[in-house]
């Protein structure tokens, strides 16, 4: 789960990590008031869950409260397009108003779980090359990244902070401040079940202070059950509405750009089904895993989500019945399709437990399905259907 910069900075504050003075606002008037309170040059930053906000015009400075109000009028409500939002962009509903600071140097600090076999633990990463994406630094100048593994059994040790702060070439007085920030950032990571915490840039001011100029915290979805305070930070406006509906129905769904809708049981098979559609010359409209239970009710919900995507022109149902019996799936599909008056062409491929009974039910049903036996045959059939729809226009 992602949160906004202003929410991440609030957590930083709670953990004693210095952040610029500021506050969040949702109207130009609030922005003006905050700017007045700060009483100097300020920055207005669009709050959306995507990077690259500055380049997209979502971050602007202002010299006076009046100026701040004007800038806020431009940013609030705008459709901000960055390299991470996709061409449709994200509507800006909130801005963070902060004091503008003099920059001596921009550093990078981040923590994530490193999955490689020599680590398999949180790794603290730092770089003197802050302000740019760390992936870019990693590919162009990997020598500029310092990494320190942190074993969560046992507490944070001072040397871990020193290894980084002196590695960054910081002066003694700044190094001890950096060590404290690293330790607190690690605490957030561990105590909140984060999957990523990032300060980019970590600002070194001309006076030798360190502040988190930006803040990013992602949380492990599997850890949310024990953090009600984090769950409350979720901003549903930032998520694809269909994906929210799906999550509420216990269905794993991700919207894609194609026109072949698919419904599959199991995440691996669902990914493989998307790949098959592509190999057959089509484009998948979604990833959809109905899960293990896949009751008639769940199948109906999945169909509703799938068909709410107006781009979908044909559907492929691909089920491998294990514990889940194919005849049960077949009656679920028939029931849902007739109840919803589903008119989209559909290919159903069943394999596994009670497959013969399942196929028979489909063939005898008044609804029109094409039945496929083979995995690739199913993909080819559904792609042919889509092409036929396109031709008939």
């Amino acid at each position, binding site marked *: 789960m992602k949160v906004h910069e202003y929410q991440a900075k609030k957590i930083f504050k709670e953990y004693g990590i210095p952040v610029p003075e500021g506050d969040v606002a949702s109207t130009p008037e609030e922005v003006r008031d905050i700017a007045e309170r700060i009483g100097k040059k300020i920055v207005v930053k669009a709050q959306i869950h995507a990077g690259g906000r500055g380049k997209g015009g979502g971050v602007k400075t202002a010299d006076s409260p009046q100026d701040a109000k004007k800038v806020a009028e431009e940013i609030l409500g705008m459709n901000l397009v960055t390299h991470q939002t996709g061409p449709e962009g994200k509507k800006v509903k909130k801005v963070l108003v902060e004091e503008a600071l003099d920059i001596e140097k921009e550093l990078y600090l981040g923590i994530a779980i490193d*999955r490689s076999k020599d680590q398999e633990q949180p790794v603290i990463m730092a770089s003197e090359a802050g302000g740019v994406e760390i992936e870019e630094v990693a590919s162009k100048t990997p020598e500029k990244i310092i990494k320190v593994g942190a074993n969560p059994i046992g507490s944070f040790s001072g040397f871990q902070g020193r290894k980084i702060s002196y590695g960054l070439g910081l002066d003694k007085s700044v190094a001890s401040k950096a060590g404290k920030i690293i330790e607190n950032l690690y605490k957030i990571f561990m105590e909140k079940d984060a999957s990523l915490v990032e300060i980019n840039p970590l600002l070194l001011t001309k006076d030798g202070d360190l502040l988190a100029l930006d803040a990013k915290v992602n949380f492990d979805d599997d850890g949310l059950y024990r953090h009600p305070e984090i769950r409350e930070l979720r901003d549903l406006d930032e998520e694809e509405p269909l994906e929210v509906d799906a999550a509420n129905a216990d269905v794993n769904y*991700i919207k894609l750009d194609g026109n072949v809708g698919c419904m599959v049981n199991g995440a691996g098979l669902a990914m*493989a089904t998307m790949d098959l559609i592509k190999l057959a010359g089509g484009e998948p409209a979604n990833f959809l895993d109905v899960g293990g239970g896949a009751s008639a009710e769940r199948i109906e919900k999945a169909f509703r989500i799938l068909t709410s995507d107006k781009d979908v022109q044909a559907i492929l149902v691909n089920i*491998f019945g294990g514990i889940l019996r194919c005849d049960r799936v077949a009656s679920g599909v028939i029931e849902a399709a007739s109840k919803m008056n589903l008119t989209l062409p559909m290919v159903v491929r069943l394999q596994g437990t009670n497959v013969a009974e399942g196929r028979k039910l489909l063939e005898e049903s008044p609804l029109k399905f094409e039945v496929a036996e083979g995995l690739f045959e199913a993909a080819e059939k559904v792609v042919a259907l889509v092409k036929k729809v396109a031709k008939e226009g």
Partner: protein
Amino acid sequence: MSILLNEESRIVIQGITGGEGSFHTRESLEFGSKVVAGVTPGKGGVDFDGLPVYNRVIDAVLKEGANASGIYVPASFAPDAILEALEAGIKLIVCMTEGIPALEMVKVKKALKGTGSYLIGPNCPGITTPGVGKIGFMPNFIHKKGNVGVISRSGTLTYEVINQLTLLEVGQSTSVGIGGDPIIGSTFLDILKLFADDPETNLVAIIGEIGGNAEEEAAEFVKEKMTKPVVGFIAGQTAPPGKRMGHAGAIISGGKGTAAEKMRTWEEAGIAVVENPADIGTKVVSILNG
């Protein structure tokens, strides 16, 4: 022999009295698995289909000689259940539970180091050795005894592959679903090493997916040490970056962990990579018939 699960395995089911635990224990018994006991804290002393239920794993070890465990307990209790099995000296621990926080698994993984025990999972369908038994919930009917080892990060896609093999009259030595989480017990590499040394395995089919670098680590071993043929498929060739594709570990982050990259690495290591998952079975057959 086969790997991990063999004639000597005596299985204890942790969470045997729960809905999932009881259902899959019965399926597993039907498959011929040697389940010797169950454990549910607080329910010690009850009887489950003639099997004794204990409060503690150590009791199942001391009284029934349990040396393998299957875990079906909720995510908030599962890390503790794994550690309990480990401490009781269980050598094969298979955890089916989905949704364990990654940081909990980091701690479990540290505890596993140096113990000699194998953890399979979490968030996995388990392990099956046809003719011997299974721990987990792979469907019984798909398997056939034979000489192909299967390793996969997924569930139903694994069944699909095993079923393809069985329909082509190609049996399996052992099939292992290693799980879809970012931090798991045994990796591709760990299981590949076992198959490399197993006289009953002639070929290994590995099913990877996007995210992480377990596929790349396996490739290094295949390139340098593996003498048996390996057939591979990577799911998620069309997956968008930055999205968690069902499995917590199936995510392309920072441009890393794409299917294209993994397929290339596997090919360079000498793995016979198929682009189309429907071709896995036939590819295996064509290599076996050499």
